């Protein structure tokens, strides 16, 4: 008789946790053995001292699961979530990210070893790299957690203060060490650690300030944001600005790092024109001080006029800084100083960070101004003060984050490495566009489309045809520059959307997915089979797609010099697309999409023409792929059917789901995050492991946050003019899981 041996559940669980930690150890370690030694990877990852750390993790997981009832009340306390985030960020910063490019693999450990062997460096650096970071990494989170657990306000404040000190210390020590060692450094380890410590400080503040019993971190953050709208942005901007003015490198012409003061002395008496000299010498400080004071005053006095004045002053200052950056690099190139051959080369991060700082402060002013404008309007629906404060907090939080994001998007890329600029403007940009389109079909209209990449193919081949890059040439009146091809490519994609939509209208769910999947493959295989020598088969386009040109007679600008030019073109296109689609979501058509997604029969009964609305979803969704096709084709110049494989279709679906189905910002964030991740991991983990880590991220995300990064919140614009009936509780009950299928 074979009786099943039944172990007590605790033992099974412990074994599962330990097994999981061994798997994790193998994931983190080396993956392949060699011809001589097949067990090498296993031995290195498992039969090593480090396995103890992983086993401890497993035991910790076991304890947390087993004593969940005991742990839960602590986890629910205010501040625990930001604490967890902070620990994750710090661990990533210290163990995953690069700290100093020119040195070996650039990881923290390597840098710490190097610092230990170097004399003459800042004594603080020895302390920091020697033991202080260990103390900070373990001590501060533990201290904060203890403060939360025993509800000790004073300890929480102390921990928050220490975290801020450590944050600043990290940046200073890193900057001084890099300055000591020389060389250009694009790494983010220190910045990430800085952010991690700041989040930790935030956790401490939340714990110290919050009166609540359970987790209200989000509410607390919103309260802080609503307390003085724009204040967090102003503070952040001032911090960044100080960094830029005092520490950061402004010019690195010969591998040396010149701060603002150094740059100023370098250019004294070199024939630099008045404005730039003034900015370098004193105007930058004055401008920044003026903007900062204006912003602080606007926020503190809740003055709308001062808020707009801050924004205007910030805009002017940014122009002055940009002009200065142009002038100094142009002059340096002219005089053969450094390796630059034209303007905008060899710049450090300083100028750009100052721009981000100014933009952030200006944005803070704008947020303040907008908020006080809103207060005066006839908005006052009687939700009670708490509700209004909550809403105000939410809108300022979103606005602040969005504006800060715009600032980063505008001024951060120039400081990134060539690889990242390339990646930003090709993969990330294109897939963000595609995800915005697919979000219309899947997220808004609820139609699962697994062949979306086909529209991208159609857009790309249309572009190639119109720009004379395929064996079959268009009639001469139709041969266009890529920019003029945009409307035609979009029109063709709209048409293709209708053509695909028409036969699939009666299908739903799985059936629709299969049909669209087939459509995607058909288009790719047509491209491979090269009918009428139109597509040039698997070799891809026959001539490179030309770069876009703007030629107005008196000004002529041709793209193609650097990826950055494409990045700014992409920003303009994205801005247009986002504004249009944002308007679309709240429109009648948007509501009709929402209705057929929710319940088709009811939508029909409410007077929605389901046929037309579905066709519109397919067509409008497809239109962004036309744009992406033009953009990608002309930037890279070359593509072939391999770019349009099924895998890419599925990836776009994953981006949309990851970001949060039905949320425009979510789709953008999801696509950006998941296209960024592989490129990021390229530097951080062995190449063969990359996909595994991405899979792990997706899994964890779908288990713990199935609604996506930034889930859709039903927009309030849909409830037009119903203020009079605004009676019952606003916060809707979320009984339906957001994870419910498409």
């Amino acid at each position, binding site marked *: 008789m074979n009786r099943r041996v039944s172990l007590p559940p605790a033992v099974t669980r412990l074994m599962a946790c330990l097994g999981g930690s061994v798997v994790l150890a193998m994931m983190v370690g080396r993956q392949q053995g060699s011809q001589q030694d097949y067990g090498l990877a296993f031995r290195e990852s498992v039969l090593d001292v480090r396995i103890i750390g992983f086993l401890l993790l497993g035991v910790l997981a076991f304890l947390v699961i087993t004593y969940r009832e005991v742990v839960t009340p602590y986890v629910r306390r205010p501040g625990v979530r930001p604490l967890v985030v902070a620990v994750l960020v710090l661990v990533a910063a210290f163990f995953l990210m690069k700290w100093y490019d020119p040195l070996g693999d650039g990881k923290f450990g390597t840098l710490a070893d190097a610092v230990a062997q170097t004399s003459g460096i800042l004594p603080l650096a020895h302390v920091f790299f020697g033991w202080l970071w260990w103390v900070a990494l373990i001590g501060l989170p533990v201290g904060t957690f203890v403060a939360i657990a025993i509800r000790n306000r004073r300890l929480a404040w102390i921990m928050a203060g220490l975290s801020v000190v450590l944050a600043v210390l990290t940046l200073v020590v890193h900057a001084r060490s890099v300055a000591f060692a020389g060389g250009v450094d694009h790494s983010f380890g220190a910045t990430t650690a800085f952010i991690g410590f700041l989040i930790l400080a935030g956790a401490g503040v939340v714990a110290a300030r919050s009166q609540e019993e359970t987790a209200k971190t989000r509410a607390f953050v919103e309260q802080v944001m609503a307390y003085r709208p724009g204040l967090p942005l102003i503070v952040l901007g001032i911090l960044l600005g100080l960094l830029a003015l005092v520490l950061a490198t402004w010019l690195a012409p010969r591998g040396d790092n010149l701060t603002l003061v150094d740059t100023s002395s370098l250019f004294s008496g070199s024939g630099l024109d008045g404005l730039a000299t003034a900015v370098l010498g004193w105007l930058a400080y004055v401008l920044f001080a003026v903007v900062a004071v204006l912003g602080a005053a606007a926020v503190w006095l809740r003055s709308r006029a001062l808020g707009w004045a801050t924004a205007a002053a910030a805009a002017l200052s940014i122009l002055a800084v940009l002009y200065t950056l142009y002038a100094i690099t142009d002059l340096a190139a002219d005089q053969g100083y450094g390796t630059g051959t034209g303007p905008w080369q060899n710049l450090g991060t300083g100028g750009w960070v100052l721009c981000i700082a100014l933009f952030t402060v200006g944005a803070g002013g704008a947020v303040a101004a907008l908020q006080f404008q809103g207060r005066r309007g006839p908005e006052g629906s009687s939700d009670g003060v708490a509700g209004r404060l909550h809403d105000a907090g939410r809108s300022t939080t979103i606005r602040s984050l969005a504006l800060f994001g715009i600032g980063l998007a505008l001024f951060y890329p120039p400081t990134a490495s060539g690889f990242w600029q390339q990646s930003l403007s090709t993969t990330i940009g294109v897939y963000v566009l595609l995800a915005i389109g697919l979000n219309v079909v899947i997220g808004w209209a609820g139609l699962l489309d697994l062949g979306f990449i086909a529209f991208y193919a159609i857009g790309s081949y249309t572009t190639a045809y119109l720009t004379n890059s395929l064996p079959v040439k268009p009639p001469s009146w139709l041969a266009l520059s890529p920019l003029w091809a945009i409307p035609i490519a979009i029109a063709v994609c709209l048409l293709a959307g209708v053509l695909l939509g028409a036969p699939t209208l009666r299908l739903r769910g799985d059936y629709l997915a299969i049909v669209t999947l087939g459509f995607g493959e058909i288009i790719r295989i047509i491209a491979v089979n090269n009918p009428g020598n139109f597509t040039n088969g698997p070799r891809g386009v026959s001539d490179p797609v030309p770069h876009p040109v703007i030629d107005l007679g008196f000004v002529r600008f041709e793209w193609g010099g650097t990826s950055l030019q494409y990045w700014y073109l992409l920003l303009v296109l994205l801005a247009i697309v986002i504004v249009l689609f944002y308007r679309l979501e709240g429109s009648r058509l948007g509501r009709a999409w929402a209705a057929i997604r929710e319940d088709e029969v009811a939508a029909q009964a409410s007077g929605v023409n389901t046929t037309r609305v579905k066709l519109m979803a397919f067509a409008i969704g497809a239109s962004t792929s036309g744009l992406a096709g033009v953009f990608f084709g002309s930037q890279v110049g070359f593509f072939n059917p391999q770019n349009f494989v099924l895998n890419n279709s599925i990836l776009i679906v994953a981006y949309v789901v990851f970001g949060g189905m039905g949320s425009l910002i979510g789709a953008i964030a999801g696509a950006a995050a998941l296209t960024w991740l592989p490129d990021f991991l390229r530097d951080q983990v062995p190449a063969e492991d990359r996909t595994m880590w991405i899979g792990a991220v997706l899994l964890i995300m779908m288990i713990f946050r199935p609604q996506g990064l930034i889930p859709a919140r039903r927009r309030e614009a849909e409830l037009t003019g119903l203020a009079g009936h605004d009676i019952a509780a606003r916060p809707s009950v979320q*009984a339906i899981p957001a994870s419910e299928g498409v």
Partner: protein
Amino acid sequence: MSEGTSERVLGDVLLDVVDLQVRYGAITAIKGISFHVNRGEIVALLGANGAGKTTTQKTVSGMLQPAAGSITFDGQRIDGIPPHELINVGICHVPEGRHVFPRMTVQENLVMGAFRFRAPDQELLAHVLDLFPRLKERYGQQGGTLSGGEQQMLAIGRALMGKPRLLLLDEPSMGLAPLIVEQIFEIVRSINVDGVSILLVEQNARQALTVADRGYVLETGELVLAGTGRELLADDRIRAAYLGEELAS
């Protein structure tokens, strides 16, 4: 309660169905039936499962095409008009099984009902909320979180937001507790008093016939009985077939 009904003005024929035939492929589901709804009337369409009630209803609301016969609404042929256009004619349809938008709030559901207008009629919205006080309580709640009865109320309220002249109700009592069913029919009556004609498809013959002015009984695609609500309620065959009463004789 019959005072309310007697005060109403019953007018000429609003909906006229003549010799209607509907086929699902080779199967003829409706074998040539004729009935009409007068202006201001409540007409009940009764029948057992599979009798063709819902098929008739769906054909009237444009979701199915008739194989033969005609449907006239207010003097205008409406057979073949798709459902989303029918709402502009003045026919609103509450589908069987309470199709509410589960992840929209009650408010959004109601506003969606007024989709054919540029903006929802605020007075009508207030009126609908007065008609359904329960919906007022649940105003900010998502449709999918409501109870069955509340969902049915929401579905009816949503249809009213489209300002119908004829309301098609498909099995409003389905799967609801008797007490709720009574509430629903009470509301149906008051909607009718407001001047909306109603075509009611029901299995719950007793409830339907107490509110209906007239009723038709369908059996396997054919009309077998017609009469006023009171006549049908008293009819022995109805009592036997639908009310579960033993025949006295």
